[in-house]
């Protein structure tokens, strides 16, 4: 009976290890990629908005050279504040699962106002007006493409919210499962209740070691500081997020190992003290 109980305790330890690992990964994703404010914070930290603004201005310059229009016509079409607002709208869309459109009418209005101011009202003939309208459409498309980065934003919007909702349910499920495991441990360790910390310690050490291994595997396999995805600005954000996630994994791993060792040492000390003192 004693051996059966011991085996059950170890089985629960294994289960607890898996649950702790899953809970930590879920928590890390929830507090980083699953958190809108975290993404905004990373954008601020990496100066993402300024970089995207510079990209937008540069992309307008691409058309400036072939347009035959005065350089000043292309000035102040968008502001940094607008770029920030629109970028945040995209992120908000992804998190809330809606498709709020980016406002582009102001770009058209600013462009036409610049033409009127620099070239004079009604300076364009019908053909030129048509060509300018076509140019404005190209500029607006360039703007939205630069802000959006990719055409799958709408598809992501549909899935992201659902994934996050499931992750929330999953997280609650894991917490309940951990509680059940601990209750089960208490249930079969009725005589010396402090012994459950021994098995909890084993689970902490195993899950902590696992997290350290994961960190080593990722760091060995992927050169995070050289990752380049979509654009320089986006790459820097992704690099920053991944580095922080890996740091959290390492920190969690080390903390779990320390907590595990302390827990095991104290439990064994109490046990042996009671037995031999």
């Amino acid at each position: 009976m004693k051996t059966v109980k011991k085996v059950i305790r170890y089985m629960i330890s294994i289960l607890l290890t898996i649950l702790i690992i899953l809970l930590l990964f879920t928590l890390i994703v929830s507090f980083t990629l699953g958190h809108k404010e975290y993404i905004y914070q990373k954008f601020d930290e990496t100066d993402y908005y300024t970089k995207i603004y510079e990209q937008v201005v540069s992309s307008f310059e691409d058309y400036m050279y072939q347009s035959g229009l005065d350089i000043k016509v292309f000035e102040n079409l968008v502001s940094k504040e607008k770029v920030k607002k629109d970028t945040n709208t995209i992120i908000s869309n992804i998190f809330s699962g809606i498709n709020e459109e980016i406002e582009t009418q102001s770009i058209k209005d600013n462009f036409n106002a610049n033409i009127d101011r620099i070239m004079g009202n009604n300076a364009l003939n019908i053909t030129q007006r048509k060509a300018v309208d076509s140019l404005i459409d190209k500029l607006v498309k360039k703007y939205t493409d630069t802000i959006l980065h990719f055409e799958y934003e709408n598809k992501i919007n549909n899935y992201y919210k659902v994934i996050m909702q499931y992750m929330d349910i999953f997280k609650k499920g894991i917490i309940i499962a951990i509680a059940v495991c601990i209750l089960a441990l208490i249930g079969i360790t009725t005589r010396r209740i402090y012994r459950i910390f021994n098995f909890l310690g084993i689970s902490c050490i195993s899950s902590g070691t696992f997290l350290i291994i994961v960190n080593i595997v990722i760091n060995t396999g992927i050169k995070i500081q050289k990752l380049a995805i979509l654009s320089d600005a986006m790459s820097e954000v992704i690099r920053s997020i991944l580095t922080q996630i890996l740091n959290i994994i390492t920190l969690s791993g080390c903390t779990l190992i320390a907590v595990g060792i302390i827990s095991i040492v104290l439990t064994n000390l109490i046990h042996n003290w009671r037995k031999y003192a």
Partner: protein
Amino acid sequence: MHNKIIRKTTKATIINIIVALFITLAIVLLIYLFCGAEIGEVISIASKIGIDVENKEEKETIINEENEIENYPEYGTQYATIEIPTIDVNLPVYFGDTYEVLKKGVGHSSGSYFPGEGGSIVFMGHNFPTFFRRFSELKKGDKIIVKANYGEYQYKIYDMQIIKETETEKLPIQKDREILMVYTCYPFNNIGYATQRYVVYAEREK
């Protein structure tokens, strides 16, 4: 007595830690057995998403006796100049046709052949006054000289055409005739988005 307690505690702690490490090992092995290949693939893909600047080695572009280019220029770099004496054009030529390239000089469409290879070459540039604004002054028989960093090539203009931006068939890529096609936006004094292109066709002189 205290020594015994410490000894027993140390022994039990070590055993517990070993058990914990065995559990980790078992989980790692299970993951490796069930989805090791998939994880390896993901890491392999992720490791390739990046620029390895340290391993970049610049090799000189050369053309061999079979008119084959060895060590093509890197995308976005200048590898030649184009001279059109009739309209005082002397501009750098870059491999690639991005907007960034076109701000600096003439772009070489990456889908076309290189000068000297024997196939069609497509160059493009803006119609700024210092670039190709004076294309309309060119006549049949005028010369275009391309000085690549692996050789110099001379072409003679035989045709000029105004095409729509969508008429890509008018810039045919063929491998057995070395034609240089240089185009710019049209009309030259256009305002707004130009939907036409002025193309100069030139054939390599023997």
